């Protein structure tokens, strides 16, 4: 349910692959304070989901090299994780697993 108060924004998040299993859903709408950055938003998702979800997104203080994040269907480079989100943003999270051998 979308609850958009003046001091917060609502961000739509879609989980793919094992992340959907950990989150127990493929999509959710999450309310966070305005000016929340993508990094803070991902940390918020870690807080509200089970422990294995955290392991999937991060190693120590770093987000995993194989975590792929899309904001409004555009891939976000790690250096852009500190940009603030906007109300209605669409975030897609993939645990990226590509092929393998040369």
């Amino acid at each position, binding site marked *: 349910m979308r609850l958009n108060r003046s001091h917060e924004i609502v961000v739509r998040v879609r989980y*793919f*692959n*094992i992340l959907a*299993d*950990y989150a127990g859903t493929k999509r959710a709408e999450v309310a966070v304070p305005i000016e929340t950055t993508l990094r803070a938003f991902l940390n918020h998702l870690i807080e509200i989901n*089970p*422990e*294995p979800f955290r*392991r*999937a997104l991060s190693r120590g203080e770093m987000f*995993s*090299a*194989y975590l*792929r994040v*899309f904001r409004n*269907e*555009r*891939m976000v*480079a*790690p250096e852009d994780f500190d940009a603030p989100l906007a109300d209605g943003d669409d975030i*897609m999270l*993939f*645990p*990226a*697993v*590509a*092929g*393998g*051998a*040369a």
Partner: protein
Amino acid sequence: MALTAHIELSSGAIQYSTTEPTLKRRFLGARGIGAKILFDRVGARISPFDSENCLIFTTGPFSGTPWPTASRYHVTFKSPATNAYGYANAGGHWGPELARAGFDAVIVTGRAASPVYLEIADRAIAIRPASHLWGLTTVATHEQLLGVEGPSGRNGRVLCIGLAGEKRARIAAIINDYGRAAARGGPGAVMGSKNLKAIHVRASGRGKTRADLATVARAMSKHLVDDPKLSGLRTDGTVILMRPKNMTGDLPAKNHQFGQVPFIDHVDAHALNRYRARRLGCAMCPVRCSRLSIVPDGDHASEVEGPEYETTDALGPMCWNHNPEVIIRANQLCNEYGLDTISTGVTVAFAMECHQRGVLADRDLSLEWGDAASILGLIEKIGRREGVGDVLAEGVQRAAQAIGRGAGEWALHVKGLELPRQEPRVAKGFGLGHATSNRGADHLYALPTIDVAGNLEAARTIFPTEIIEQLVDPADETYKPDMVIYGEHYCAVTDALGICKFSTTEEYSLLPDDLARGLRALGVEITGAALLEIGERIVNLERLYNVRAGFSRANDALPPRLTRERLVVCASETDPTTGMTRLGAPLREAQLFDFDAMLDRYYRLRGWDANGRPTRAALARLDLSAEGAEIVG
């Protein structure tokens, strides 16, 4: 103009011709030209070890140029593993050296009366006696031929076979540049059957570069360096996949009885990096995903290029082996004997499951899961064809037939080629790709990564908007055929150009239009769309080869375990006591719901009939009517 060399080992005759421009126009280079030559020269009645079988070494239009990742060569042959179309492909430095020596293709037929090697210099080839090399490891062979210059390249480049190839192990590879392998389908065995130990190439030419190509190549190289999708490959190489694949259930273990291991902390990139002496890269590669690993001392002291992901899973989790030093040592042994690490690991795992089920024993080795002595001992026995290794050297399909007692249920192969290291019940696009690949189970025939890599940008570029959400869901089978078909065409183009898929289909960093831009700088007027049509032509010609050999839909099948059994995927969590990763509660069951429906759509989209045979209309569209005339009527 580059040359095609025809070498008949039985008579010692060597002929040279200018490579036909029509051949390049229709099939581009490397894999495409190899496919056409094999199709024309090695018919259904020729067996893989007959002297009439060909070994066709080819380079592509980008080989010998500064194009980023232009390091690959291709070798095409009738496969002793599948008895059908076969090829292998490898990076390193040998391919560009061959191109700089002036050759598009080197076709080897016949059988030498005694061991020989080929010495290739600028536009000239000689057959030399190799009795002094026969029986040597691949490393020793390199050392003999390259002398003190070693891997520097100042004395040229070498490819060769080891003992496994000499003894015609059907899982034998060709090893080049000490630690690179053209591995799949048994090319080493074909080379051994011809008494051909090695090919030593020395080129003095600088290659076929042009100023405008250099400009485009620099831009593409920078693009690859800057692409964040390739950052994991740059920092850790392909073993970065170990951990996320374990998390998603896509890390085949215990011969695909499991898709995860409880010991991932021991075999992930972090663990393997402890043995990484330095990063390595192929010729012209800005990514440099490879590594030199050294185990300095102890029972498993070793030094080898690798291991990469496929090898790590095959010789690690597949055999329930959690010791990274054993993985590295096993990699080294495979290279020295000249064995395909994928097929060898799958074969060792097969033997261990046969033992688990009570149908196989060995007097020297326990064959227990994870037993280091058994893993290393079996590799030696396979390489030497000793004892149980003699039957295992035939690969799992033939070994299962020899062992009997239901062993076929545990033989993980397609068309006779051992399965690469994806779990088809989780990575369903790979499952379909393994099945449809014309060289047998192969992750690199389609490299369908778009869904599992979450490559939304590539999906949007290639596919209609309305199918993308389903297509990028690894569990959704609906549009996997669409993804596999596009991947097959683009992989064929990549192989035909002599470049690495890590620049193209792995992450779609470079797209067909980028490659066309490079070709135009070489004077070849072509578009990205036209390149993909050539890719489709190559795939259809390879399919025709197999149809002519009697292959059909029945051969596009996955092993029964993967279509009948469900795979439990567990949560990956932290053990609060040890801080180590462990497997927690089951999350879901992974399974292939309707593999036949995927295959039906795959055939329909290709314009093939329900039995997997190209139709006349499809062949006419691809300018393959002449090749198909006597096969599809």
